């Protein structure tokens, strides 16, 4: 397998980063995961953490070096992650199970399989266009599908964060599985949380990734999304991977798994929520800006 991969997670303007991202590959198989913990401070983070960890561990157990059945693996791993969250809830005597969105993708033998629950998305970009993307499990998406809501209204809908499927929580997740997708040289996958696609939208995401190396495009897109969301920026997370034919010319950052040992794994998990508490001196401009922002927030209410 040959591919380029890049991932990043940022806290945005929130007090904690409840997103968890990971990728992991063996010689013959690649896994990518984004989980976006929901609500309730500590708890959402817990759910996302358990989900990302459970799925990565399952992959490491089974991809030796290839998964027996990638579609079946996804089904077992995601359902298993859901139950792992519920079990942890019991262990901690929590009153209600914490919840997280999930999107996970496996690539093996030049074919991709993915599954998701909630509103974290997977995009497949091919030849400068969005070839396919996951449909959010949200009421807003449902209304759009029924033609009751335009894309523009959906982007500003007050209930756009409400989702009806996720891991954890009181209801069984409705996990949606993709059909098999044979990959072409240059195909790019993007897995991201709503903190990224919300402020950017499909078009900006596409434009930012076309013909740009991932290690440049991803941080740039994240900064764009963060800037657009401004004061309300949610946690932002993105895993992006570009697929290369075994025959194509290799760039310097391309990972080739051909020489990997059969039982070896490379894993990158962003499981730590980095805090932002360093002592920073405020300069005059920052003080002025903070005061302006606060007054803007106050006066937003006055107009209502």
């Amino acid at each position: 397998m040959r591919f380029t991969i890049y991932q990043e997670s940022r806290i945005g303007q929130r007090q904690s980063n409840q997103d968890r991202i990971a990728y992991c590959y063996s010689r013959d198989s690649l896994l990518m995961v984004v989980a976006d913990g929901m609500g309730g401070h500590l708890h959402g983070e817990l759910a996302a953490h358990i989900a990302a960890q459970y799925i990565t561990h399952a992959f490491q157990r089974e991809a030796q070096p290839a998964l027996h059945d990638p579609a079946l693996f996804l089904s077992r791993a995601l359902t298993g992650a859901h139950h792992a969250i519920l079990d942890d809830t019991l262990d901690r005597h929590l009153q209600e199970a914490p919840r997280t969105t999930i999107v996970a993708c496996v690539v093996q033998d030049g074919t991709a399989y993915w599954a998701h629950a909630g509103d974290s998305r997977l995009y497949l970009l091919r030849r400068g266009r969005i070839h396919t993307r996951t449909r959010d499990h949200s009421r807003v998406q449902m209304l759009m599908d029924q033609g009751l809501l335009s894309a523009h209204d959906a982007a500003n809908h007050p209930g756009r964060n409400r989702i009806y499927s996720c891991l954890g929580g009181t209801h069984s997740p409705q996990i949606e599985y993709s059909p098999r997708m044979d990959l072409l040289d240059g195909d790019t996958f993007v897995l991201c949380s709503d903190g990224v696609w919300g402020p950017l939208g499909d078009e900006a995401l596409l434009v930012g990734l076309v013909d740009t190396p991932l290690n440049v495009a991803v941080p740039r897109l994240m900064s764009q999304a963060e800037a657009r969301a401004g004061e309300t920026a949610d946690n932002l997370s993105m895993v992006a991977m570009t697929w290369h034919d075994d025959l194509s010319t290799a760039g310097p950052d391309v990972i080739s798994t051909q020489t990997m040992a059969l039982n070896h794994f490379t894993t990158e998990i962003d499981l730590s929520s980095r805090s932002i508490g360093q002592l920073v001196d405020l300069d005059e401009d920052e003080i002025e800006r903070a005061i302006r922002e606060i007054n803007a927030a106050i006066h937003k209410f006055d107009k209502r």
Partner: protein
Amino acid sequence: MPPQANCALPAGFQLDQYRIDRQLSLGGFSIVYLAHDEAGTPVAIKEYLPNSLALRKDGEIMPQVTEEHQAAFRYGMKCFFEEGRSLAKLMHPNVVRVLNFFRANGTVYMVMQFERGRTLHDFIQKHRGDIREAFIRTAFARLLNGLREVHAHKLLHLDIKPSNIYLRTDGTPVLLDFGASRQTLMNDQPILKPMYTPGFASPEQYDRRDQLGPWSDIYSVGASLYTCIIGSAPPRADERVKQDTLQPLAKTQSDRFSPQLLELIDWCLKLDPFARPQSVYTLQKALVHKSEVETAPHTPWFTDLGSRLKAFIGRG
């Protein structure tokens, strides 16, 4: 060296568009004034003035900040902004409203709506041992509406106590002083220690700050409820962790209050964060549950049926 007390701005002082009337309170981090704007509307103005870092001597206006404290003073200002940001996002009848934010005299000021009434602390002092269950349930159920709004914005209050709960003259409660919420972000500051009030702060506020959550505010609500019943605060949580001397209210007060209320308060005061009600909604539901049963007038079945029919027809 103990921190010196700062001098307040004098009465009649013209601060931006406001005229200072008098000092309302003095804390370690700020001074709160009663003032009037140009239209004569009373407002409460909070002045950022940390005792340990800035000193205003009698007769002076500009506080002095020594060179070595400059960075910490600015850092604290950032925290003060966080409080402003938190409050500016909230618009709720049971949460204090912030009206303006400005810079003057080398420091910053937050202008808030002035509420007439008294703190729950004063109310408890006055009516010690004579607060009725119905009052407690109603006041706290409303207060929790405000706290739900706070949590819905992913904020924690972290300093809920009777002196931060204000009772308007019409009896409705307002949640005040979000100064402590600043410490949810950063807790490794040498000079500005996280602040908490003994008796009302949850155990995780002392040493396990990674476990802070809505349940931490719920502990403080429980401690405030406890104070309404007993007349004084429960033992400090950090002491309780070592040796728990707290007597469950359900055992000691059942002659004056319903067991359901007492058990609810005991539940909020559990030392294990996860053993408490996990959301304000859960607590609120339990709080209004009993009173509905007790106080709701019995509706004759036909009226009830009539209104149900109306609703049914209206829907069609």
